[in-house]
């Protein structure tokens, strides 16, 4: 915070003023997604799963990467969204896709708000355990509430009407699903990007870096954390809801530790707190897992494990972290260097 307003051409001031402007490479993920759509029509089922995972990872990035809320139970919100869409559609109450998504976001946000209100009084390991417990309790509730949730077998063959009343969801060649998910992902990403660069987002980063100091400057730390957690839950709920719509079914797999751990691995792999870590991590993890398991159905996890070990050992900032280090090496070293690492508390 050493920037003074009367020095508009100071490098730090320029960097701050330009921090939210769009860069040319930010269009690449979207171009790649559209290219994928036209180039690999037979891989769209996998592509849809991939995009939903990106969306889910982005929601986690908001909580984990920006606010520093380390959670192991994020699938609770994914599942809440998925089951909202599933239960409403299965019991014939509501099945229109877009409004269904809004409802999924609402329910997940409610779960996030209520659990956040209580759980965010704790931090660190306690919080980690409590998020895990919340998720497992929801999973068991979904297992026991057989009449509503279908239990272990889930709710199959949901009746999801065409998108905008025109575009059918074809289970074999999921073109509609892919574009639908891509559109929703784009909107959610724009929102998260805006949020991350807003004063609110900067405040979150401040809380992550130094909670005590944020308290000292008078920031409402707990309120900010609860709001962030709720928004993150809502986006996870959208990811879950769209998953249920794209697959036309929902089961306990949406709520499990498996999913919560996978999304965490993806985010750490890609690099958290970087907006694009979710894209890089999800693509790297899922593409590798998908194609390795095709070639070696029994031993593919070995290859994936090796990659994770290498990343954990040599690249703490994830794959994007490696990129940043390389860029810094390549850049001419004329200006006086700011300390590369974040200031310690």
């Amino acid at each position, binding site marked *: 915070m050493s920037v003074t307003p009367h020095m508009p051409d100071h490098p730090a001031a320029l960097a701050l003023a330009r921090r939210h402007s769009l860069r040319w490479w930010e269009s690449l993920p979207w171009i790649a997604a559209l290219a994928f759509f036209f180039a690999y029509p037979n891989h769209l089922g996998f592509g849809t799963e991939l995009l939903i995972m990106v969306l889910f990872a982005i929601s986690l990035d908001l909580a984990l990467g920006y606010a520093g809320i380390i959670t192991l139970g994020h699938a609770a919100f994914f599942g809440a969204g998925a089951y909202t869409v599933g239960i409403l559609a299965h019991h014939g109450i509501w099945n229109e896709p877009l409004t269904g998504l809004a409802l999924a976001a609402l329910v997940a946000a409610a779960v996030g708000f209520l659990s956040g209100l209580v759980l965010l009084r704790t931090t660190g390991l306690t919080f980690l355990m409590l998020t895990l417990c919340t998720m497992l309790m929801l999973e068991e509730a979904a297992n026991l509430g057989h009449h509503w949730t279908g239990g272990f077998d*889930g709710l199959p063959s949901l009746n999801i009407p065409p998108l905008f009343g025109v575009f059918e969801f074809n289970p074999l060649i999921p073109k509609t699903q892919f574009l639908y998910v891509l559109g929703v992902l784009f909107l959610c990403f724009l929102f998260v990007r805006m949020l991350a660069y807003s004063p609110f987002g900067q405040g979150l980063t401040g809380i992550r870096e130094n909670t005590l100091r944020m308290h000292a400057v008078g920031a409402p730390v707990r309120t900010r954390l609860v709001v962030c957690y709720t928004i993150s839950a809502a986006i996870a709920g959208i990811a879950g809801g769209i998953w249920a719509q794209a697959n036309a079914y929902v089961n306990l797999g949406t709520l499990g530790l498996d999913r919560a751990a996978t999304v965490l691995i993806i985010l750490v792999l890609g690099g958290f707190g970087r907006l694009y870590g979710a894209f890089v991590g999800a693509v790297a993890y899922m593409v590798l897992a998908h194609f390795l398991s095709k070639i070696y159905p029994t031993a593919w996890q070995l290859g994936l494990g090796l990659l994770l070990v290498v990343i954990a050992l040599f690249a703490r900032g994830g794959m994007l972290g490696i990129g940043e280090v390389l860029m810094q090496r390549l850049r001419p070293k004329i200006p006086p260097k700011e300390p590369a690492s974040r200031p310690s508390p």
Partner: protein
Amino acid sequence: MLKRILAASAALAVSTALAGAQEVKVGVVLPYTGIGAEFAQLIDRGMEMYLKLNADKVKPYQIKLIKRDAKNPGGNDARVATQELLTQEKVDVLAGWVYSPNAIASAPVVNAGKKFAVIMNAGTAHITQMSGYYARTSFSMWHAGYAMGEAAAKQLKAKTAVVGYTDFPPGKDSLNAFKRAFEASGGKVIDEIPMGGAGAVPDFTPFFQRAKDKKPDVFFVFVPAGDHAAAVTRTYGALGMRQAGIRLIGPGDITQDTKLQAMGDAAIGLITMHHYHADLPNAENKRFVAEWKKAYGANAVPDFMAVGGYDGMALIMHVAHQLKGKIDGDAAIKAAGTFKFNSPRGPISIDPDTRDIVMNEYLSEVVKGPDGRLMQKVIGQIDNVKDACKAQKIAPCK
């Protein structure tokens, strides 16, 4: 020279075209990793054992197995695998499915793909009704549960029973099947005890104590095949339930052949109802078990999952022969209805109305064999059992 090259390439083209016409591509969706990896291996070996032992029946077709990992019971991986087998690999037949939720999740894709699909394990009763292209060569939970209910009342002369079940759909299926048959035959189920989920093996002591306190004639237990079963027999022995005059009975999942030896002497006296175990005395099974040991080691033993794969492959070959290698989904389902086969589990067929298997059920008791190893002795048999859930139109099989 040029002529010779042209002639050679033409010959090559003709021969590949011929080979292509005779090749049958089978897409296999099984959980090759994770907790189900052991089951996937058994089914896989079952399929390959059929191709090996019946090479003459496979001719002139060439079976190409394209394997995909279903990973977990979450459903989405199995669904994507099914999708890609249909759209990318253009398979003629689909096969596999260990977990019921995976078969349920894949049903809409199978419907849209219009390809013949053989379920080789997943046992929730109503799955076969979710797609008209599904046929099942494994079992429905009702096969053994219903037969056991009748046998418990008639053959074991039990008047009262307590049911303990793992609290997930196959467990509830098993409970419903047993209860309906047992009470229709004059018995009474005096307590139903849910015993935790399928994910982890619980401590069975409190559940079993509750059952013991009720003093039933028989204690019917359903737990998933695998590690649950060993814990069941251990707890049964530790609580002295046999001495208290309570017989432990259940479907064959609790005496899975691959786990039987590890259960120890506590398992002696256990009575199960199932369509297959490796000690069935028929000639076909003796050959099957001998070949299995030859291929996979003296201690290896096939079980009901392996037979599900074996018979599934037999069904696929039957359909291939009937349709002369052109396996169209609708025609294949019709052809499957004429399937009759002498399996290691005895004579089997596919019910043309429900596309589910019709087979014998065997009442067996665990005894100590002459070589000191545990084995199962057949003490009763019911022929040509259909899935009672569908035969009697019980919800959700309507």
